[in-house]
């Protein structure tokens, strides 16, 4: 099987675009990624499009209607918060299969404001508050408390994740927010669901990101090997049976399964990773994923953030983009945006937030359902 390379990638600055459509912002990211590769839509042989909230509305084809109708195969996919990463992985699989040499992956999303989740009414009455809660913060807060139960993780440790990611975002011009949030501010912001305060919840924003993938042969043919980034591993998992999964979605087991497979496919250990963009949809989630991705021993995630090991300049920088907490979390775009971030570092083009000497990076997303996706990317020489 051929190796697969990223030869172009970009994202729009995340924000709120009430007057623009999903295909419109998707088209913008697609053109930016094509420009980054020096290609035209006419060169592309297939499109993989990730969008969640208009998943049944042919977003991929509508993007082509805006930038060039070439008749190429289009797949629209949806996988909760792993939607964008799923589109990327399908593009990777396409090239692996030998079907095409050049494909485009786009993720785009326009989010509503407010809480994500639904107030389902089985048999006609609202169960919110009656059978616990159906909101997203509830799930990730309960999982945080599960961690507290096992390892004594403190409110302050969870909160420090937000302090870090908001700090990182001040170095990222494409982040939605770019403001320092000291620990006192994080702790004193509105409590959403204990222990997550408002500043410990990811930001609902609109956004898009795209990547152009190529086979090794095509990269050489185009003379793009210098700036190309190699996909060393692409892994997806769903949630295996575990005791609480059906009442308390278990994002840890599927992440660990994916991480083990990804390290094996890449032929590396966690200690060889230079930077990580992981799924910090809530501050509590980042703590869990330090351990799930084997960045530290079980139960040591609290200490990892206390020691500032995951800051830019630390032992293993995590979410130097600002993460979902500060860069923002447009569901369908997130998985490709974190691939853009890691690629930018591996190219040495990340400016003030550059992780010095980065050679290998890992991206991780995991969504309710569950769908987990991990990619390991490597600098080429």
């Amino acid at each position, binding site marked *: 099987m051929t190796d697969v390379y990223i030869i172009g990638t970009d994202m729009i600055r995340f924000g709120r675009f009430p007057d623009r459509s999903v295909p419109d912002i998707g088209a913008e990211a697609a053109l930016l990624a094509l420009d980054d590769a020096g290609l035209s839509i006419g060169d592309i042989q297939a499109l993989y499009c990730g969008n969640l909230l208009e998943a049944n509305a042919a977003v991929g084809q509508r993007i082509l209607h805006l930038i060039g109708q070439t008749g190429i195969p289009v797949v629209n996919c949806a996988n909760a918060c792993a939607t964008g990463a799923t589109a990327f992985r399908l593009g990777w699989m396409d090239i692996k299969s030998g079907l095409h040499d050049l494909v485009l992956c786009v993720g785009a999303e326009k989010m509503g404001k407010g*809480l994500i*989740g639904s*107030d389902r009414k*089985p*048999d*006609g*009455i*609202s*169960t*919110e*508050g*009656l*059978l*616990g*809660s*159906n*909101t997203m*913060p*509830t799930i990730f*807060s*309960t*999982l*945080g*408390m*599960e961690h507290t*139960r096992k390892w004594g993780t403190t409110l302050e440790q969870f909160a420090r994740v937000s302090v870090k990611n908001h700090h990182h975002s001040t170095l990222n011009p494409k982040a939605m927010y770019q403001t320092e949030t000291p620990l006192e501010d994080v702790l004193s912001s*509105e*409590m*959403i*669901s*204990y*222990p997550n305060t408002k500043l410990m919840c990811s930001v609902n924003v609109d956004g898009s990101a795209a990547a152009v993938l190529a086979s090794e042969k095509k990269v050489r043919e185009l003379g793009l090997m210098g700036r190309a980034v190699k996909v060393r591993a692409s892994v997806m998992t769903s949630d295996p*049976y575990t*005791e*609480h999964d*059906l*009442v*308390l979605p278990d994002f840890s087991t599927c992440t660990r399964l994916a991480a083990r497979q990804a390290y094996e496919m890449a032929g590396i250990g966690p200690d060889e990773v230079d930077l990580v963009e992981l799924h910090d949809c809530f501050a509590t989630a980042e703590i869990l994923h330090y351990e799930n991705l084997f960045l530290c021993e079980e139960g040591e995630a609290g200490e990892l953030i206390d020691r500032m090991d995951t800051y830019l300049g630390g032992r293993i920088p995590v979410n130097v983009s600002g993460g979902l907490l500060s860069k923002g979390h447009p569901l369908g775009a997130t998985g490709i945006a974190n691939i853009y971030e890691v690629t930018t570092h591996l190219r040495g083009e990340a400016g003030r937030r550059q992780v010095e000497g980065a050679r290998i990076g890992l991206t991780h997303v995991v969504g309710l359902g569950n769908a987990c996706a991990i990619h390991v990317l490597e600098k080429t020489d």
Partner: protein
Amino acid sequence: MQSPTPRTVVDFLKYGEDGSLYLEGHRCRDCGAVYFGRRSTCSKCFSRSRMDAVAAPPRGHLYAYTIVHRSFPGVETPFIHAVVDVEGGGALRGTLLGVPPDPDDIEMGMPISITFEDAGQTDREGNRYMTYFFRPA
């Protein structure tokens, strides 16, 4: 005129032959996994049509929780969202009552009693509903 028997808020909260409520679990004959809600295949061991309906004891232990301060519009907060390991197998999520919504007052692993109470709401047709709550045992 007697008012009709209230409905139940989830299909696994059932009336027994004596008219009292109970939680119906489904236990896999092959691996012992217990599920709440209708099901014919075991998600753990994949065996099919080997599910025995069982009446779960209305008690267990608090596995994890959060205190919900922001909910959907119109829902009263704060309240405690809890996950409870039911005695004999299986887990439920629900609302924990009878404890202040404060982490200092909630003990992980504490014994829980599962109570059956009126939901305090009616649907559009005016039907009443019974639900379950968690309370300290």
